C-alpha cells in the first residue's frame, strides 16, 4: 500500500516577529521540511509611486524617505541623482562628498539593524542592544546634520540642504575610532560561535545562476560570488575617488552573507574617513537658479532672485522631456529610479526599483527543501525592508 503523502500548509506572518515587517509566507510542510514557500506581499503598499506623479520634483523628497526607511539617505540620493541626470545637472564636489559620508554612515546603521535583528531571531538578544547602541550614535549624527534621526529630507536636487555643522566631523571621527573595536567584539562573539555557524552555514543557499535569474542585488548577490556593486560598476556621487574593496562570498549561504555585510561595514568606515580627509571647500548646492533656491542674502538685493524663488516655490522645476534610470548601491542592493518627464513641473511616472522586492522573490528557491526553522535565518539574511518591497 502506497503511503499517502501528507503535507501541512501553515501561515507565517503577517504578524510574526521574525518576518521583519508585514510579510506573510504560505509554507507547505512535510514534517519539518519545506515543500513550497509562497510569499504574500502588499500589506504595506502605500501607493507612493502614484502619489509622486501628483507632486513636484522637490515635494517628492520626503516621500522617498519612507520607502526604504532604514536607509533614507540612499533613497534620497537615488531619487536626486535620477532627477539631476534628467536635468543634465552637475552637483558641487563638496555636496557629493557630503552625500557619500552620510550614505556610508547610513549603510553602517542599516547593517547594524540587520545584525541586531538577526541576533534576536537566533536568540542572541544582547546583540540587538549592542547594535542599537552603535546605531543610535549614527542617528545622532544624522540629527546633527539634518535635524532628523530618520527620514532626514536632507538632500536636495542639485546638492544638500545645508552645510555640515562644525561639530560633525569630530563627532564622526570619534565614532569611527571606536567602531572597529566594537565590530571586532561582535565578530569575536559570532564568527566562530558554534551555534551561529551551524545556524548559518549551508542554510538558505542561493546559487550564482539563481541570483542572476531573479535579479538579486546587493550583499545577497555578492555572497553568491558575483562582485557587482553599483558604486564600482557605475560610479555616482564621486565614488570613483575613494578606495574600497567589494567583499564577495563563495557558497552563497547565509554565513557568506553575514561575512559580506560585516566586511561592508568596515569598508564603509574606510570610505567615510577618506571623504572626511579630502572634503573639498565650496558650495553645497548648485548655483543653477532654475533648480535650487537662491540664498537668503540675494533675496533682499536682487529682483531676479525673488522671481526665481517665487517660481521654484509655486511651480517647481521643469526638467526636459525624456526618461532616465539612475541607480545607487543601497544596503540592500541596487536602488534605482526610472523617471519619465513630459517637460512639466511634475513627473509622469516615477518607478522605484526596489532591491528588497527582487531579493524576496528569490526566497522560495532558497528555503525549498530546508527546515522550517531555517526560514527565519533565510529572511534575516536577505535583509528585506517591507516598505521597500511594497512601496
Amino acid at each position, binding site marked *: 500500500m502506497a503511503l499517502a503523502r501528507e503535507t501541512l500548509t501553515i501561515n507565517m506572518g503577517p504578524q510574526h516577529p521574525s518576518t521583519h515587517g508585514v510579510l506573510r509566507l504560505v509554507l507547505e510542510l512535510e514534517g519539518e521540511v519545506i515543500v513550497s514557500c509562497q510569499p504574500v506581499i*502588499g500589506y504595506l503598499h502605500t501607493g507612493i509611486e*502614484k*502619489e509622486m506623479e501628483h507632486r513636484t520634483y522637490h515635494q517628492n523628497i520626503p516621500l522617498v524617505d519612507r520607502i526604504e526607511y532604514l536607509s533614507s539617505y540612499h533613497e534620497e540620493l537615488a531619487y536626486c541623482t535620477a532627477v539631476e541626470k534628467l536635468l543634465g545637472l552637475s552637483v558641487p564636489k563638496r555636496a557629493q562628498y557630503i552625500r557619500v559620508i552620510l550614505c556610508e554612515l547610513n549603510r553602517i546603521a542599516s547593517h547594524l539593524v540587520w545584525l541586531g535583528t538577526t541576533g534576536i531571531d537566533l536568540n542572541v538578544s544582547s546583540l540587538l542592544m549592542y547594535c542599537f547602541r552603535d546605531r543610535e550614535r549614527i542617528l545622532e549624527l544624522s540629527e546633527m546634520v539634518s535635524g532628523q534621526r530618520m527620514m532626514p529630507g536632507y538632500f536636495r536636487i542639485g546638492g544638500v540642504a545645508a552645510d555640515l555643522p562644525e561639530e560633525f566631523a569630530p563627532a564622526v571621527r570619534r565614532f569611527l575610532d571606536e567602531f572597529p573595536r566594537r565590530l571586532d567584539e561582535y565578530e569575536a562573539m559570532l564568527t566562530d560561535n558554534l551555534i551561529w555557524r551551524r545556524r548559518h552555514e549551508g542554510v538558505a543557499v542561493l546559487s550564482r545562476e539563481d541570483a542572476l535569474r531573479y535579479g538579486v542585488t546587493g550583499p545577497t548577490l555578492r555572497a553568491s560570488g558575483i562582485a557587482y556593486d553599483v558604486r564600482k560598476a557605475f560610479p555616482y556621487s564621486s565614488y570613483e575617488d575613494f578606495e574600497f574593496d567589494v567583499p564577495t562570498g563563495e557558497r552563497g549561504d547565509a554565513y557568506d552573507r553575514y561575512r559580506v555585510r560585516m566586511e561592508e561595514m568596515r569598508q564603509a568606515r574606510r570610505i567615510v574617513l577618506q571623504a572626511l580627509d579630502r572634503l573639498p571647500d565650496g558650495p553645497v548646492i548648485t548655483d543653477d537658479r532654475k533648480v535650487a533656491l537662491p540664498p537668503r542674502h540675494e533675496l533682499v538685493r536682487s529682483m531676479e532672485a525673488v522671481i526665481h524663488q517665487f517660481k521654484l516655490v509655486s511651480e517647481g522645476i521643469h526638467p526636459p522631456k525624456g526618461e532616465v534610470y539612475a541607480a545607487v548601491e543601497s544596503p540592500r542592493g541596487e536602488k534605482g529610479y526610472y523617471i519619465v518627464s513630459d517637460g512639466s513641473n511634475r513627473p509622469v*511616472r516615477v518607478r522605484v526599483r526596489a532591491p528588497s522586492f*527582487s531579493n524576496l*522573490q528569490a526566497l522560495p528557491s532558497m528555503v525549498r527543501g530546508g527546515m522550517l526553522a531555517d526560514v527565519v535565518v533565510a529572511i534575516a539574511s536577505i535583509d528585506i525592508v517591507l516598505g521597500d518591497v511594497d512601496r
Partner: protein
Amino acid sequence: MSGSAFPTLLQAFLADRFGEDVLEAHAFRGDATVVVRRERVVEALRALREDPWRFEMLVDLTAWDRFPAEPRFEVVYHLLSPSRGERLRVKTRAPGDDPTVPSAVAVFPGANWFEREVWDLFGVRFEGHPNLVRILMPDDWEGHPLRRDYPLTEEPVEFRGHVPKVPSEIVPRVPPPGEGP
C-alpha cells in the same frame, strides 16, 4: 553605458536580427534605449541575454501609461550585464484596447513578480505568465491604480474641520513652455 549615442555594434546586431521590428534606438543622457515590436520582444530579450551581449540580469520591469496617446502602454525592461558593466533599456508598446504583451518569465524567472505588479497597477496582461494575479493591491480591488485616468483621492478622515486635499491641488501641473494648458 557612457556616451550619448546608441552603441553602434548593438544597433547593427539588432537591425540585422530584427530588422523592421526594431522601432527605435536612441540614447538620452547616456541611457541607451531600444523599442521593439511586442511580438518579438521576448525573442529580443533572449538574444540579448546570450553571448556576446550577456545582459544576464533583468534589473527592472515596469510600465507607464501614455494616456491619452496611443499606443497607450509602454512596458520597460531594464537589462544589466554584470560582467560587462553595461545597461540597456528595452521597451515595447501595447495599445489601450488590447493591453497584452508576451511574458518574459521563460527568459528571466525574475520577471514573474514584476509582471504581476504591472498587471496589478496598470492592467497590462502578460500572455503565458504562470500566475498572473494581483500582487500589491487586495485581490478584490477594482481598477488599476497607476493608470493615468485613475484618480488620486484621499480617504475622508474624521477630524473636525479637515478638508481632504489631493496633493495635486497644492501645486497644480504647469505644462512646459510653448504647450497649452
